[in-house]
């Protein structure tokens, strides 16, 4: 990865953490500043700007969450601005996980929606309160005993609460580029096997000489949903394989893959709430608990993916060469 790509990756990381209206302007300004700094450092050492020079400048400049926080208005913060994204993500994840695990009981009519809401549903908001207290105490400790900016040594009090501090900034881009290829070697064959099993789990269990009647699909699901879900999974797997072999993230393929992922999540949610998947109630409930988590993970992945696509810093079209 060259110096400019590192700078872009870094400014995108900062921009993602800024209020929407500031993202592009601040991102562009930072990109120009960092380019100047990297060029100046390279020129001082008599070399061309390279990844090492850029990484040194970026790390000295500060972690993206800290840089982004400098643009936030200061005052008394219950939750430190640099901790806010982690707080929001954790709160959403905890609430969503509790709902994902307990909501299938409503779908299977084991409890009514009202009963669920007054119990596990609204009860999930308890996590938010707990996390507010947690992050408020973490922020207070961090303000009282900050990390040494030179040695990065963290005071022992930071370990009382988990305080989200990374030692060095790491570029997201190289990992993201390498991920499909590295993981494809495992994921593609594994997914293919699981998809074949998905066509008729009862039949495959029967092949092992075990009674597979508990894994029979509900007739309605088999007739109306099995084929569309299977087709969608096949198309997604083919595109994933192509992207992995290509090793390039091409905008159109990425957009199609994201659209297919979104369609997949919508179809799964609809299946969860409107259909019986397995004929046997117990199997259906157990599978739906797993499927809820799977759907949640895929949904969060789709949102994160969309955010990555739309929060890249770009030169405004209105800007003309002087």
């Amino acid at each position, binding site marked *: 990865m060259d110096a400019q790509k590192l700078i872009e990756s870094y400014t995108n990381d900062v921009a993602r953490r800024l209020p929407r209206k500031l993202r592009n302007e601040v991102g562009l300004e930072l990109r*120009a500043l960092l380019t100047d700094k990297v060029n100046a450092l390279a020129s001082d050492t008599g070399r061309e700007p390279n990844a090492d020079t850029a990484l040194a400048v970026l790390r000295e400049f500060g972690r993206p969450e800290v840089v982004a926080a400098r643009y936030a208005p200061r005052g008394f913060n219950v939750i430190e601005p640099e901790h806010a994204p982690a707080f929001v993500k954790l709160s959403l994840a905890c609430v969503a996980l509790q709902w994902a695990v307990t909501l299938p009981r409503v779908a299977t009519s084991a409890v009514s929606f009202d009963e669920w809401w007054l119990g596990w549903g609204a009860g999930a908001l308890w996590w938010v309160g707990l996390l507010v207290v947690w992050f408020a105490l973490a922020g207070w400790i961090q303000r009282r005993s900050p990390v040494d900016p030179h040695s990065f040594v963290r005071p022992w009090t930071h370990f009382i609460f988990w305080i989200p501090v990374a030692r060095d900034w790491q570029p997201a881009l190289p990992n993201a580029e390498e991920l499909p290829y590295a993981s494809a070697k495992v994921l593609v064959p594994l997914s293919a096997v699981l998809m074949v099993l998905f066509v008729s789990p009862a039949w495959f269990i029967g092949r092992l000489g075990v009674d597979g009647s508990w894994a029979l699909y509900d007739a309605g699901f088999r007739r109306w949903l099995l084929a569309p879900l299977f087709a969608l999974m096949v198309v997604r797997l083919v595109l994933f394989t192509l992207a992995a072999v290509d090793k390039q993230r091409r905008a159109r393929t990425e957009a199609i893959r994201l659209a297919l992922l979104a369609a997949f999540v919508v179809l799964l949610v609809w299946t969860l709430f409107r259909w019986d998947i397995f004929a046997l109630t117990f199997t259906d409930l157990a599978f739906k608990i797993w499927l809820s988590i799977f759907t949640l993970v895929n949904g969060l992945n789709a949102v994160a993916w969309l955010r990555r696509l739309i929060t890249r810093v770009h030169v405004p079209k209105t800007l003309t060469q002087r």
Partner: protein
Amino acid sequence: MAKTQEPTATKLETELRRGALVLAVLSQLASAEYGYSLRQRLAERGMPIEEGTLYPLLRRLEEQGLLQSEWRIEEGPPRRYYKRSAEGTRLYKDLAQNWRELTATMHRLLD
């Protein structure tokens, strides 16, 4: 005891400098400058400022109507150029006058 004095001294010095930053920045923006060149200009004149302080400060001053900015593409990436607005120039003159009076007072106090 000495251990606690050092961070306190640094903090007080930082606060002292912070008070002068707005005036220092306004003083150099009679003509348009972009962040990096402004920082170098200030550093050459003995007023180094961290980028992390300078850039948010420039944005705040612009929001307050004291600076105006525009994007330009010349060499390299697009850069945002800042200069004093009419209101910024008025405030700068007032602040400069206040600063001179304050330094004269401080000189008398310190001598």
